[in-house]
């Protein structure tokens, strides 16, 4: 009798990570379980914190372009794009239309390869490795295009401040259009698979439902939010760069479960294919770069938002008139979506956890940055250097 009492009060916690076969990148999860059902979930992030924001303060404007590109290994162009846009706005430089179109072209190609990569990983987590192999094989066509276009398969370094580095020739145009046709055919097939395959649907349909209210409350971004019916896409809400000339149609699903997230991402691919064709057929003529970009940028601050494959990337850049930024703040979509995993985890089987996590398309290296947590009273709990130092001294004094 006594034993039963304590068992009821005590929680059985399963720790997963930071190194775990089910995790592709380091993160620490603790799931409180009741049998197989998850009753509570917490996460601890920061295992691959690299201090990029601080590092950016010690590099000049140009060098940072390459530094921020390495925040994320998959959406690298998006980070450079967001940064370049911010700095160009700060310097009041107008980027030539052809350069803007090429930036968007690379961004959309990147979206395709990112979604295909995610699709493969998600299929793998669901135990459908054939789909994983197929989707990654098809992803190679896009990687080849990006290699042909920019010279690198990842970290394309396509941007320079005030334009892009390379041109899209007729030959590229032909190969891209061919590849897009091929990818469109394949994506149709994949959409058919994820909506009809009975085994796959058992892992996705009705799992991890986040309804509209929850999505708003948790501040979910990107395709994960659009799967819950949130009409939120920076490309539509605040069209930037060439999205003004080449508008995109938002893909919204309302079910909010894992299946909807698959469908949203795959349907987004069709929009990307359409946009790529449209850009290639109506490529504006003109220069690739501005003639001169200032070395020092006049004092000021700017925010820049871009829709990455995973959601909104947000940059805050402040200049004090020097050769280096005074502050660079990056907010990545995975950071915002992580809370939704924890909320959705409650009430699900432990076996669904990898699928739930992968459903938001997590990028752990994007994730590892400082956060200011708003407490219930509404004020930010900001730690000064002195307080942090005192905390460290007290912490270790207590330990000894």
């Amino acid at each position: 009798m006594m034993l039963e009492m304590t068992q009821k009060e005590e929680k059985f916690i399963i720790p997963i990570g930071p190194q775990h076969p089910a995790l592709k990148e380091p993160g620490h999860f603790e799931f409180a379980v009741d049998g197989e059902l998850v009753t509570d979930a917490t996460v601890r992030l920061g295992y691959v914190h690299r201090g990029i924001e601080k590092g950016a303060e010690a590099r000049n404007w140009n060098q940072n372009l390459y530094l921020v590109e390495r925040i994320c290994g998959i959406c690298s162009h998006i980070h450079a794009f967001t940064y370049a846009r911010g700095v160009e706005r700060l310097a009041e430089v107008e980027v030539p239309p052809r350069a803007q179109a090429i930036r968007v072209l690379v961004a959309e190609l990147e979206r395709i390869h990112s979604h295909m990569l995610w699709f493969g990983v998600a299929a793998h987590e669901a135990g459908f490795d054939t789909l994983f192999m197929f989707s990654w094989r098809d992803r190679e066509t896009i990687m080849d295009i990006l290699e042909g276009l920019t010279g690198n398969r990842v970290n394309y370094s396509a941007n320079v401040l005030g334009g892009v580095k390379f041109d899209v020739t007729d030959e590229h145009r032909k190969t891209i259009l061919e590849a897009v046709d091929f990818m469109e055919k394949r994506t149709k097939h994949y959409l058919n698979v994820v909506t009809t395959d009975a085994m796959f649907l058992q892992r996705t349909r009705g799992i991890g439902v986040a309804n509209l209210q929850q999505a708003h409350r948790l501040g979910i971004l990107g395709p994960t939010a659009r799967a819950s019916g949130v009409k939120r896409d920076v490309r539509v809400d605040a069209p930037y760069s060439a999205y003004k000339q080449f508008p995109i149609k938002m893909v919204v699903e309302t079910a909010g479960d894992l299946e909807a997230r698959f469908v949203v991402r795959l349907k987004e691919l069709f929009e990307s294919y359409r946009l790529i064709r449209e850009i290639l057929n109506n490529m504006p003529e003109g220069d690739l770069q501005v003639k001169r970009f200032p070395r020092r940028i006049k004092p000021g601050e700017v925010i820049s938002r871009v829709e990455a494959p995973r959601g909104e990337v947000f940059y805050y850049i402040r200049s004090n008139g020097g050769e280096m930024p005074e502050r660079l703040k990056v907010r990545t979509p995975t950071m915002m979506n992580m809370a939704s995993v924890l909320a959705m985890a409650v009430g699900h089987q432990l076996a669904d956890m990898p699928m739930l996590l992968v459903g938001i398309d997590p990028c752990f290296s994007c994730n590892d940055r400082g956060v200011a947590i708003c407490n219930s009273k509404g004020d930010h709990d900001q730690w000064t250097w002195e307080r942090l130092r005192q905390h460290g001294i007290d912490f270790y004094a207590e330990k000894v």
Partner: protein
Amino acid sequence: MIKEIGELLKGMSITMRHFVTPPVTVQYPEVKRPVRNRFKGRHELKRYDNGLEKCIGCALCAAACPADAIFVEASENTDENRFSPGERYSSTYEINMLRCIYCGFCEDACPTEAIVLEHNYELSFYDRQSAIYTKDMLIVDVPVNGLPTPQTVEPGIFNKAIPEMEDPK
């Protein structure tokens, strides 16, 4: 029953179709997939047709490098000991391949198009010291009709460091 067999055949037909289609993978060390034209691989220091080095030791590449991977030291050219056109040449040119991020910014910064990211991607080392590529490793072979450097040349021919070039289109 018939329906189940039909489903089975449908599934097997996909398997059999992929069984006969050629694989997309290549047997890497034996078979190499060709890289694209714009591929950014290992750097090469180029020469002119007469064998003179294009690099003039200006170290603009080192200044542009976001990763601080390049180290250049320049020395004076003389007409008896001429390495490159102009006043100076690079007596030391080192790239730390562990630092290099292959962004191609050195290529863009170079005024004489001396440094080019070529197509070699097989870079692996046993120790960190051998990751530093020196000028001897980076510079290309002397062209067929060229002479090895240092050359002895007539005075007054190679006074200009930067050759006549068209504006990029």
